């Protein structure tokens, strides 16, 4: 009887411990996603503000807001692709979780990473097709919903 009770409390303890562990895991994952996601956005903002600065305008090229945003996107995509190519970004993803997947650098990673991985399956159905394994759905539903709101905008205008 007492053995049975001990067994039960041990089991209860395990359940409690694992739920606590899960809670602290969620907390840790979220902190990491928050920190890395925020950091990537700070990097992008720094690049954009530098492109818009009077120093850059006087010495290199005077961008307008839209131009600076486009160049910032290009630089961020390049960084995401480059860090993927040197096998850094996927490992960063293990620590940062959604913090590295949600920013535009993660979008670049989602294209470049499978492109590298599926090289062994050929250039057409390997690299060419698998490149869009994650980006494809994003583009399909993103553009389709944009067409939907565009149509509504056109009709209601």
């Amino acid at each position, binding site marked *: 009887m007492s053995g049975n009770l001990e067994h039960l409390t041990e089991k209860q303890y395990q359940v409690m411990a694992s739920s606590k562990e899960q809670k602290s895991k969620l907390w840790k994952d979220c902190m990491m996603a928050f*920190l890395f996601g925020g950091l990537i956005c*700070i990097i992008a903002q720094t690049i954009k503000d530098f492109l818009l600065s009077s120093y850059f305008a006087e010495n290199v090229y005077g961008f307008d807001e839209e131009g600076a945003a486009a160049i910032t996107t290009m630089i961020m995509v*390049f960084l995401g692709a480059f860090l993927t190519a040197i096998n850094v970004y996927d490992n960063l993803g293990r620590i940062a979780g959604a913090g590295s997947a949600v920013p535009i650098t993660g979008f670049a990673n989602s294209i470049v990473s499978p*492109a590298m991985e599926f090289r062994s399956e050929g250039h057409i159905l390997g690299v060419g097709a698998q490149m869009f394994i994650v980006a494809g759905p994003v583009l399909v539903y993103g553009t389709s919903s944009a067409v939907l709101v565009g149509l509504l905008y056109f009709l209601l205008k």
Partner: protein
Amino acid sequence: MGLLVKYLLVFIIGGVLCAIAQVLLDKTKLTSARILVIYVVSGVFLSAVGIYSKLVAIGGCGATIPLLGFGHALCQGVFKAVDELGFRGIFTGGLGAVATGIVMAVVFGLIASFVSKPKSKIQ
């Protein structure tokens, strides 16, 4: 608005948008691809009703760099193209606005597939 406050807002808004995705990832059975689709579609609709532009005004790159901002760019691109081209703009505006990012990622992906090999990932 001070520079420090501005950057703090960028950090917080960008961070929170990523943390929300992390909660969805940990707490629900949604796969990461599904969450990214939800993000981009939400971005389109939040942008269409005018909410996302306000977030961009506060958070700058903190709002434009996460995938919601990709949806925002799609939507604003379509709106702008409809203003300029009418009906045809519905189909040209979206991808036109985000073409830079997609094309660069595709080209870099192709180059990387030639020059780089994936290392076995650290467990």
